Structure formats: C-alpha cells, structure tokens
C-alpha cells in the first residue's frame, strides 16, 4: 500500500511537471493555458511565466518533454492498476497505452489531430513508456537470481 502511495505521488509530480512546462513556455492560446489563465485572472499563469522569463529553455524540453512525461505517467498508472506485474493482460494494457501515444503523434503527421509531428517526441515517448517497464523487468530478474 505504501509503495502505491509513493508511485501515485510520483505520477502527480510527473504530470505537474508537464503542466508546469506548458504553463511557463507555451502561449495562452493553448486550451490548458486558457484554463490556467482563468485562475486568479491570469495571475497564476503569469507568476509561473515570470519565474523563467530570462532563462533559456532547450527546444526539446519545451516541445518534447511534456509528451514524454505524459507517456511516463500513463504507463506508471497502468502498471499501478495491474499491481506492477507483467503478464498477458497487463502487457496488453501497457501496449494499448503506448499505442495511444504513438497514434497521437502519427495522427498529427496525418493531420487527423491538430499539432506537429516530431520524431523526437516519438523517441522520448517510447523511452518514457519503456522506463517503468524496464525497471519491473530488472526487478523480476534480480528477484529470480536471488
């Protein structure tokens, strides 16, 4: 139970980090920032934007990292639901989550979904999805060898 709470807390932090990147670096025309702008007549949004106004943030952090954080949180949540066990059913749902991420990006390429396709987005999303899965596989192997 304690582990679950820790993981849930981590997921909240990961998602908050993604939202934070959007809030400080993207224009107010994005839906997410429009909602953020509603908070305190834009004061919350401006407060965060002012924090990093003179800081140079690399392009991949602005445009690709939020996608990777989104994917990481989604994979971790699916793993949490399936008790961090890798079996036929859990793998199916993890694969579904990864597919959603890939389809989102490909749909942008095909202009089905608004947005700009970016290979770096795709690579970072894959890395983010495979990170928690790899940790579980590694843990399973260590457990077996012990």
């Amino acid at each position, binding site marked *: 139970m304690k582990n679950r709470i820790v993981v849930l807390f981590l997921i909240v932090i990961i998602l908050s980090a993604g939202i934070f990147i959007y809030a400080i670096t993207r*224009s107010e025309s994005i*839906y997410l920032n429009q*909602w953020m702008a509603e908070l305190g007549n*834009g004061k919350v949004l401006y407060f965060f934007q*002012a924090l990093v106004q003179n800081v140079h943030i690399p392009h991949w952090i602005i445009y690709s990292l939020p996608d990777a954080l989104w994917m990481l949180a989604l994979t971790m949540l699916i793993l949490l639901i399936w008790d961090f066990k890798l079996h036929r*059913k859990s793998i199916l749902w993890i694969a579904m*989550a990864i597919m959603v991420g890939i389809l989102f990006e490909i749909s942008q390429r095909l202009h089905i979904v*608004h947005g700009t396709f970016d290979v770096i987005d795709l690579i970072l999303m894959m890395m983010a999805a495979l990170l928690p899965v790899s940790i579980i596989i590694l843990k399973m192997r260590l457990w077996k060898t012990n």
Partner: protein
Amino acid sequence: MENKLKTFFSILIIGIFILFGFASIEPDGSTNTTVEMDTSRCMTMPLIITPLSFSVIHRDRKTGLPIPFAKGEFFYTIQVVTMPPGPEGCKYDIKADHKSFTTDSLGRFSETFPSVTQANAADLIRGEIKMDETATYGPGYDLLVNYYGSTDFYFQTLSLKKSDLYN
C-alpha cells in the same frame, strides 16, 4: 482488485490521458508554429502579392493603459498551398521567421515585411506576439491567424503588472 475492475480503470485512465493530450492543443489547430490545413478552404484563387505587416499595442491588463518601451518578438509562419486540391489533397509549404522589436512611448510598434504571394483560399499566415517581462510587468502573449487576402496583423497584447500579481 478484480480483473474486470482493473480493465475498467485502464480504459478510464487511457481516456483521461487522451483528454489531457487534447488539452495541449490550440483552438486554431496550431502547435509550435504551424496551423492545421483547413481542406474545406482549399481552392485556387487569383494570385495576389501583398506586403505582410503587423502592428502591436501593448497595454496594462488591469488599467488598459499603454506600456511604453517594452521589448517583444513577433513570430510568423507563412503557410502557402503548393499542391492544388486533388487526389493527393492540399499541401502546404512553410516559411517561418521572427522579428524583435521595442514599443514606443505609446506602447506601439509597427513593421512591414516584403511581399507575400498567395494563390489559394487556404493560404494563411500565423502571427504570434510575445512581450518580454520588464521590471514592472509580466510577459504578454497574443496569437492571430489570417487567411488568403489578409496579411495585416493588429495585436492588442496585455501584460499584468507584477505588483498586481499578488493583489
């Protein structure tokens, strides 16, 4: 947890995350610096060559008064249809650039760029203003999209005074 319940939660979580994904999109269909093609507009039009111009007035979000001598940047993306409507669909060629500027004592700035050639109703220009943070004011943003025949941008960008941030 029962497997059925886990399946239900998995679907729910994926659904919520899809909504999250859509929340990161702009209503005009643009992400980064491009706007999604509106295929319903895609039709050949008479060739027009017009200069691209932008004007900005930077005001205080609370009082509406102009903010003098603020630095900002104008980003623009010219999207021109290169392939006419047909089985291959309508396709864009993209050219993007930006211009740094400082507003005058009345919080205004205007500039005209070399001519833009348009020959399709789906041709568009996406213009975005980003006003820098000053010692007194927070940053300001504004975004406009102009389609064929309209190459003038008029921005009324607002910034909030830092002292008002905590009131």
